């Protein structure tokens, strides 16, 4: 029994340096997630600012309409379909790096969800905070930067963290465009060794560990921010 497991471990991970599939896949997954998160935050933040500025002041109506369209499309279609469309339709006729396509697709997708999280955060801040800032002579942008956003950031951090955990796991569908991410790496091993148990369990364990570590970091950050208020 034990000998059997050892043999399978050897076959799946050691023989022919198959562990490299997992390590390289992990690198790809982390790269895609990292840059997609950056795009997601940036895009989501911009969209949220446009949307809430329009709701508060009635300005930026056209930009707001564009943002709404973006949100509707992205949230109304599956991320796999978006990924396929970007790869086979938009970049169908050009040779392009798959990692880049994945970053773009997941970044664009995440941006929509981040936008709604941040917009909710902005709208949840009492309007009195806004009025207090303006009544002191700060302009709209200064009020946003010094008074509204710091409070928004603290309030939306748990929801944002959740969004990034979802994103990290969602990148596992990148195999649809044959990008060799972590999931694909495990799947390649499976197709070579005809053993599903070992590689897939290893893949699952790696995702789980990443999520646990990320949750821990996030929890620590949240606690730090909260401590600031009641010392």
């Amino acid at each position, binding site marked *: 029994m034990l000998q059997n497991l050892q043999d399978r471990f050897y076959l799946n991970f050691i023989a022919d340096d198959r562990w490299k599939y997992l390590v390289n896949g992990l690198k790809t997954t982390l790269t895609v997630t990292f840059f997609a998160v950056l795009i997601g935050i940036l895009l989501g933040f911009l969209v949220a600012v446009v949307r809430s500025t329009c709701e508060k002041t009635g300005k930026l109506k056209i930009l707001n309409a564009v943002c709404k369209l973006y949100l509707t499309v992205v949230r109304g279609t599956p991320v796999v379909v978006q990924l396929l469309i970007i790869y086979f339709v938009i970049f169908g006729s050009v040779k392009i790096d798959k990692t880049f396509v994945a970053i773009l697709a997941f970044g664009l997708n995440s941006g929509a969800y981040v936008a709604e999280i941040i917009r909710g955060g902005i709208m949840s801040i*009492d309007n*009195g*905070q806004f*009025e*207090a800032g*303006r*009544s*002191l*002579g*700060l*302009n709209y942008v*200064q009020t946003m930067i*010094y*008074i509204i956003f*710091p*409070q928004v950031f*603290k309030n939306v951090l748990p929801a944002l963290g959740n969004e990034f955990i979802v994103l990290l796991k969602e990148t596992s569908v990148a195999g649809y465009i044959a990008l060799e991410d972590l999931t694909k790496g495990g799947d390649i091993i499976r197709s070579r060794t005809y053993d599903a148990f070992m590689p897939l369990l290893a893949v699952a364990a790696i995702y789980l560990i990443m999520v646990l570590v990320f949750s821990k970091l996030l929890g620590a950050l949240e606690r730090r921010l909260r401590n*600031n*208020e*009641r*010392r």
Partner: protein
Amino acid sequence: MNGDKILIKIENLQKSFGSLEVLRGVTTEIRQGEVVAIIGPSGCGKSTFLRSLNLLEEPTGGTITFEGVDITDKKVNVDRMRQKIGMVFQQFNLFPHMTIRKNIMLAPVKLKLMTEEEASRRADELLERIGLPDKADQYPNMLSGGQKQRVAIARALAMNPDVMLFDEPTSALDPEMVGEVLDLMRELAKSGMTMIIVTHEMGFAKEVATRVLFIDEGNIKEENTPEEFFAHPKNPRLKDFLSKVLV
């Protein structure tokens, strides 16, 4: 006690929310050094009137001239003008993510009117004046309601405003904390600050105000010195109102 200089001139001020007319052509003047109390039944437009003076509510008609400048003109820099008009809110609206000191320092520093050191020193002076020198490095949620409102007053004073607007400053306070805020406002009035106060504190209005306005149905129905105003009200609605609020 009031100089002759007109600080704010309000002419035919109107404000509608959709089809609801809240202010129907208010006209009055605020002179330097005056302490004007505004009273009236709820929903009469007194808060809207006050909030129009620094354009937190945008008037739909009429003009407001502040220190000789028509601030309802779209070309006027509203932010610059607001630096000279302090405002204190019913709900305090302190910034919960900043210490008391930072609350007071924020506007003068960010608007480049003072350096960090100057603003910090100013904050210490103001905290001394409002009797809370030991709270500088605490956060707003550690303070009582009365303390919060005193800090809010200090925050507005940090900008060295020419006039202070108070929007029901004691209405959200527990009864035992009303006194400390009124004491501070009384002291402020004595120092010569021009103040416009929307309030339900009739005793305070009677004692501190130099003029009392009664607003009802979107307009000033009566204005007078506090002695005359409370002793010999003429407007029937005011008589009715006073008979309900005064015990």
